[in-house]
């Protein structure tokens, strides 16, 4: 545990020692803020319409359903772009600069290194998400949203991000080149994102498999405030599998020399 923390601490430190952390958190906050104000403006217009025309417009508006949920769905898109940049250097940079030799010859297990790196990336990601709590708390000041769907949305975002980070680490462990690592990670993320698009035009079994594999399909319930263990299990097993493959990839690199 102490070793995992040591690695995680080093990861976070190196994010903040370079502009990476500031650029990522700053630009994420900017984009999230833009979505926030755009959706808020739309939401206000809608509520005004409901107030003016009553039954002729949409019958009711709900701040959770019509404001926070679309906002969270938009956040997942931003995350899709941002997380490859968080994970692309984790192993690639260590391999390029030779510091991987220090880690692998220290009295650490491969799993400790991987978990440390995972925890480091998740820490940065959590800081990114923490910024958005400011926006959400403003809604609590001026409105009366339910906290449950918000809590499940954040849990969903963390789990979704965890999947991305585990894929990102896996890909980063396979190449020295950060650009290759970043681009490949992004491509895999996007593929996981849209894998269910084909679902409708395939047979019933394939449809079910593709829908199940889609990483966003599982987020939907979280954004509605439904906490279904099925989805939690999907995300957690996805993360575990990703980290397991990373461990194998690091090992096989060592055999190849």
């Amino acid at each position, binding site marked *: 545990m102490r070793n995992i923390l*040591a*690695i995680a601490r080093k990861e976070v430190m*190196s994010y903040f020692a370079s502009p990476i952390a500031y650029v990522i958190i700053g630009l994420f906050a900017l984009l999230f803020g833009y979505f926030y104000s755009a959706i808020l403006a739309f939401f206000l217009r809608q509520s005004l319409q409901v107030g003016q025309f009553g039954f002729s417009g949409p019958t009711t508006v709900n701040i959770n359903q019509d404001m926070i949920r679309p906002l969270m769905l938009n956040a997942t898109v931003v995350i899709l772009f941002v997380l490859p940049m968080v994970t692309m250097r984790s192993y690639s940079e260590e391999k390029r600069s030779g510091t*991987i030799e*220090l880690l692998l*010859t*220290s*009295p*650490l297990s491969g799993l400790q290194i991987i978990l440390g790196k995972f925890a480091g990336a998740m820490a940065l990601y959590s800081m990114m998400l923490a910024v958005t709590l400011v926006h959400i708390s403003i809604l609590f000041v001026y409105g009366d949203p339910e906290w449950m769907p918000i809590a499940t949305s954040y849990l969903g975002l963390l789990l979704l991000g965890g999947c991305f980070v585990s894929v990102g680490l896996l890909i980063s462990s396979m190449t020295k080149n950060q650009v290759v690592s970043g681009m490949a990670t992004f491509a895999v993320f996007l593929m996981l994102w849209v894998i269910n698009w084909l679902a409708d035009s395939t047979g019933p079994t394939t449809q079910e498999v593709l829908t199940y594999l889609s990483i966003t399909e599982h987020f939907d319930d979280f954004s509605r405030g439904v906490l279904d263990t099925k989805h939690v299990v999907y995300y957690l097993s996805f993360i575990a599998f990703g980290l397991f493959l990373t461990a194998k990839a690091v090992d096989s690199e060592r055999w190849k*020399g």
Partner: protein
Amino acid sequence: MIEVQHLTKTYGSVTAVDDISFRVEPGEIVGLLGPNGAGKTTTMRVLTGYIPATEGKALIAGFDVFEQPIDAKQRTGYLPETPPLYPEMTVREYLTFVARIKGVSRVDRERRVEASMERTRVDDRADSHCGKLSKGYRQRVGLAQAILHNPDVLILDEPTAGLDPKQIIETRELIKSLAGDHTIILSTHILPEVSQTCERVVIIHRGRVVAEGTPDDLTARLRSTETISLQIDTSGADPTSALIAIDGVTGVRLNSDLASVVGAEVETVQGRDLRRDLAHTVVTNGWGLLELRSIRMSLEDIFLHLTTEEDVAAHNDAANLIKTTSETADA
């Protein structure tokens, strides 16, 4: 303290290390000597547990580096060819991180970091970023990292590569001062380094151990011919025929074309001291004997001797192969 048994490492069809065995006793400094690509780095990487061996095993302080990696690594300090530094960390931050992952306890951490910085004389740059250090400092921070957790065994891959002459001398002194407390194995392709720092030498060539022993041992054992250097004033005459006529002389090489003074290197058969006969010949010919001394074969000569002899054999093999292939083609 270090034991390597029948170690073999292949990368695909390339054999980098081929059945190497050697031992290093506690407190010894042993040099792995060999030309570039001989398998020194591979051997060290297996010893540190960075890469697994294809066959054979390696023990550090009795722990198998493959079976009990954590125990073995706990007792090993390793300086890779390029010091593994994080450019964005300061020297102190970096060493503190290394102390954490090497399992130095919280109470000892600061003391160990300060002590190893002092020992490697990097304390004056403790708060500089690793990325901004000169090559010499980077190498020393790498060394500080290796000795940080006070390991029993130090494995140093070309510790003086890329340093200036003054730094090289300082680093060698440092390494020598570390022996005793630590068992050290270092690799190099620079010959004087071995004779100056190491108590024992293992010469590796093409992935095999070709010779092993103290520098003096090797010099004595491999002296198949002896060379005597002469400087004679012959007043213009050629001394070759007179010298070669002496019983036991196998070759004469003149290395000066000065009109009157001639330098000659005379190769003689092993075990016979021909200095008296040479002096006698010079004097009876009426020449002036200005200098006469026997030349010991240096480690460099031995090294070249060992590594080129095999090259010649390999070259012949290759030539034969080409010949047979063309014959097959003709048929």
